[in-house]
């Protein structure tokens, strides 16, 4: 591991997202909500969703977390917005492959930005940082507040 690996991990797109995350803040009226913690590093994240008739209409998050986690949340929410559960699940599959360094041409659902997480495979302890928003969103989808 060296500076190049570090640069792979902290690709400028990620650093950009972590500094100016998209969809940051609370959603006043949300249908789904969940909190996630990473006990290892103290990362904490809250995810708000407004889902109507199967469609994820509004998304937002708040977090006290590291750059990787923040960028992951920002990119995830941007990608998931205006899609549905199924899209999320297939993206989630692809995302965990990307984290393990298994990138293939078949990957369709994921945006280019998601591919920026490839560099993480050199840093196994950071995988959980990238995964936390995904797991929390998954939990949120199961947490129907009012429907």
């Amino acid at each position, binding site marked *: 591991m*060296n500076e190049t690996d570090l640069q792979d991990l902290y690709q400028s797109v990620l650093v950009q997202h972590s500094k100016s995350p998209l969809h940051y803040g609370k959603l006043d009226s949300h249908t789904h909500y969940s909190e996630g913690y990473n006990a290892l*590093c103290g*990362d904490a994240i809250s995810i708000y969703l407004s889902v109507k008739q199967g469609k994820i209409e509004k998304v937002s998050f708040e977090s006290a977390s590291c750059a990787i986690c923040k960028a992951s949340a920002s990119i995830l929410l941007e990608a998931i917005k205006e899609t549905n559960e199924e899209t999320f699940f297939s993206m989630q599959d692809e995302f965990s492959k990307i984290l393990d360094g298994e990138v293939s041409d078949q990957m369709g659902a994921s945006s280019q930005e998601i591919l920026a997480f490839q560099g993480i495979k050199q840093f196994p302890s950071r995988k959980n940082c990238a995964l936390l928003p995904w797991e929390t969103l998954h939990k949120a989808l199961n947490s129907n507040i009012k429907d």
Partner: protein
Amino acid sequence: MFNVQSIRDEFPILSTLMNDKPLIYLDNAATSQKPLSVIQAVEDFYKTSNSNIHRGVFRLSEQATLQYEATRGLFAEFISAEKETEIVFVKGVTEAINLVSYGFAQSILKEGDEVLISEMEHHANIVPWQIACEQTGAVLKVIPVLDDGSLDLLAFESLLSEKTKLLSIVHISNSLGTINPIKSMIDKAHSIGVPVLVDGAQSAPHMEVDVRDLDCDFYVFSGHKLFAPTGVGVLYGKEKWLEKLPPYQSGGDMIEKVDFGGTTFKGIPGKFEAGTPNISGVIGLSKAIQYLQKLDRKEAMAHEDALLKQATEGLNEIDGLRLIGTAEAKASIVSFVFDAIHAHDVGTFLDAGGIAIRTGHHCTMPLLKRFNVPATARASFAFYNNLNDVDCLVESLKKMKSFFYE
């Protein structure tokens, strides 16, 4: 003169590489490295004299038993305990506090009683008391921490009362480095008959501990932070307290007689040591103690103070870095945060350069909440660290800032 280099030579790991860079190990508050004598004692035990203890009449078992029991005396001497029966071998500080909190929950705490801890405790000195209080109806009281990371001693005095059944307090904060004035706190507590448990996880590796001078009722240690193997630790308890507490784990070796009609237990310390203990761990611990006894601990402390001073000055020069924990009395631990870089990212960056620090909540979530930070980066120094380690830390942090900010 304190010769750091010759000390470093006794710790094999200090001349290895991490991420292709010479390892700079600054995570001593999490766990310490081991001198060769400790590593070899464990190896020798398994190669030449491994046997179970307390149960054999054959020579091998007799020798293992003698080595094991001799460590009790050695440790009693190391902390100036009055009797070696006041030394109980446990897994570590966590088990030691659970043993005491279980005993208090079983036979001392009643509804309305209070247990007094502080806001800077490690989770190991919080959660067991939360559970003991929940089980008994006792109330957990918490001494607040001031902005500089020292205890609010005025609040302490007003929280301490006849209702307090135990003051359980950390000697040195693993998150902040704060050294608490435990001797005077113990005096105050004793003046109204309140016993005191001291969490010595961080103090024993840094300073000489004299439990008779402190007059504490319990003092707890983890071997792995004291240059000994993992999985072994010590509960020191005054004889009268160990007598009073009920057994904790039960099974072989802690009984006098087992019968379906009724079982009788051994006296202290045996009644607290059920089952086959971590024999090689205890033997390793004895070598660690011998190592420390040969060291000039006053000079080692002065050296650590010098490391702390240089680190504090260096870090204070970095813009956007804020030290958490600036009490006057501090051990060689520095915790810090950056305005715009999360501790976790700091850790990863330093790691790439061979520098091992810890990042996160350091098992002190309530304390971090009090300082309103989700995590800190923490560098903690042992006597085998040198000024070069400090300089590398400071330089790397400067480089890191340009990496993330440009």
